[in-house]
């Protein structure tokens, strides 16, 4: 078992760092005019892949902290690690897709634009992203209390 608060904080850090990394990549690409006239469309593609999940994890973490006595909530360590590694896998996939960009465009005889290359992987990204949110959902729902439940405490007041 692992403290739910610690686990959620770690997941928030994991997703936050990953998101920051890709935001930095995206901003650098924008500065280099990598997407040309597709700049706006790129952000339309990019942001939904990171930001909603970040706010979900962040929001639930804040909620957990505000509930009071969050440390007595424990969750299964297996669930935590599964969730963590799926997140890592998601970022690795994104990194691979971004890293293959120039190669794929060259192989397509320059018929692909950078954005088209990214969009070509949308299905696989959505599939893995869905898996991340599914795991997070399970993760948030499951908990065991050690000692007096914080919810009961709050309810008792």
């Amino acid at each position, binding site marked *: 078992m692992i403290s739910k608060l610690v686990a959620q904080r770690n997941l928030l850090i994991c997703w936050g760092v990953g998101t920051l990394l890709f935001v930095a990549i995206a901003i650098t690409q924008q500065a*280099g005019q990598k997407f040309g006239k*597709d700049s706006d469309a790129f952000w339309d593609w990019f942001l939904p892949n990171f930001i909603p999940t970040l706010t979900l994890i962040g929001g639930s973490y804040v909620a957990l902290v505000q509930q009071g006595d969050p440390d007595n909530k424990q969750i299964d360590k297996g669930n935590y690690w599964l969730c963590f590694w799926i997140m*890592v896998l998601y970022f690795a*996939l994104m990194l691979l897709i971004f890293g293959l960009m120039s190669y794929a465009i060259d192989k397509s005889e*320059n018929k692909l634009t950078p954005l088209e290359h990214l969009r070509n992987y949308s299905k696989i990204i959505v599939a893995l992203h869905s898996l991340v949110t599914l795991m997070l959902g399970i993760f948030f729902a499951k908990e065991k209390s050690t000692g007096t439940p914080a919810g009961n405490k709050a309810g008792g007041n």
Partner: protein
Amino acid sequence: MKPLLIPLMALLVALHPLQAQQKTAPKFQKAISPQKTLPPPKEATNVKIQTKASPKVVKDTSFSAIKPKTNLEKVTPSKLHLATADTLISPVSIFFQGKVTDTKNNPLPGVTVQVKGSTKTVMTDINGNFVINVKKNDVLLINQPGFHHMEINVTQQTGNNTMFAMRIAKPPAPDLPDSEAAVMEDEMPGFMIPPPQASAAAILDKDYFKEAKTLGEVDSILVKALKTAGWGDTRYYRVMDKNKKTLDGFILIAQLEQTRDDGEPMDGSQRWELKFTAWAKGDMLDYIKSLFVNRSGYFRTCVFVISTANPLASTASTNLNQVKSWFYGASIGLPASIANTLYSGQFNCTAYIYEFKQTSSQAAEMNLNRGWDTARYLSSSRILQGLKK
């Protein structure tokens, strides 16, 4: 983590859309197919293709040991007489290195060498050399406008798993003149003037051609200037007006060159590469940089219209693929009837510069923003210096 990533990478490669795209030939490659763009000439065409093995191969398989083979005559029995050598190939993947020349051993640049049934295509460089990755049983198509196309079967296998060698030669046709000049006017395609809008256009000073007495000599002056500037190949069209009526003169088209951002020609064989690559091959750091910046490739060609008409005005637009097809759809030489036409002061030589800019984020578009005049373009391409000589 690592065990998870490996199958993921394999999945990505398998799922990538370009796997499907590679099954579709690019438009340009369709356009240069000689079966579609250039009917077989009626007169003699002499093509000699020599291929070389790398030194490693020569060590094991002496070139002189290669025995002539004539199965290629089946491909073009009536016109093309080929003596081929055995092909020494690897069972899997090999780099076929060759050289394409005419019967006078003049290298033929810009010849298309394609693996049949695939989009894998290379062009010979300025020295007629090419390298292409092939597999056993691949068929190589060698296309050169004005010549008959050839098909080469890669059949024989040896223990050497890296290289092979082949030699193809065409003996002189007994009933046809052994000359490249055997271009008939009626098989020379026409080019309508005025040509489409160019990046720059100007009538060249007649002083450059003051020693010319015939159009053939005008052509020689231009070709000499182009060769001085590094160009190896030129193509020709008849001049046609809007009513498709043939006019006096001819149109000379230079090979497409690739230039840098500053307009200077690319170095080495990269100058003649028809594909823009956003990074220097083999340079990982440059590849990473290419992920972050929108790099540009520039393609440029020169079209010289030698005509009594004044073809400067034109508003029609064109694109890079069309300009590429101009070159590969043209005749390789001037017919005698045009070459022997007397050159008089009525003829103007108008130079058109077509420059295209391609970036990694969008298709090639005509570059009208450089702000250069024709002289600047010609100077940048070293042609002006050649003309002045």
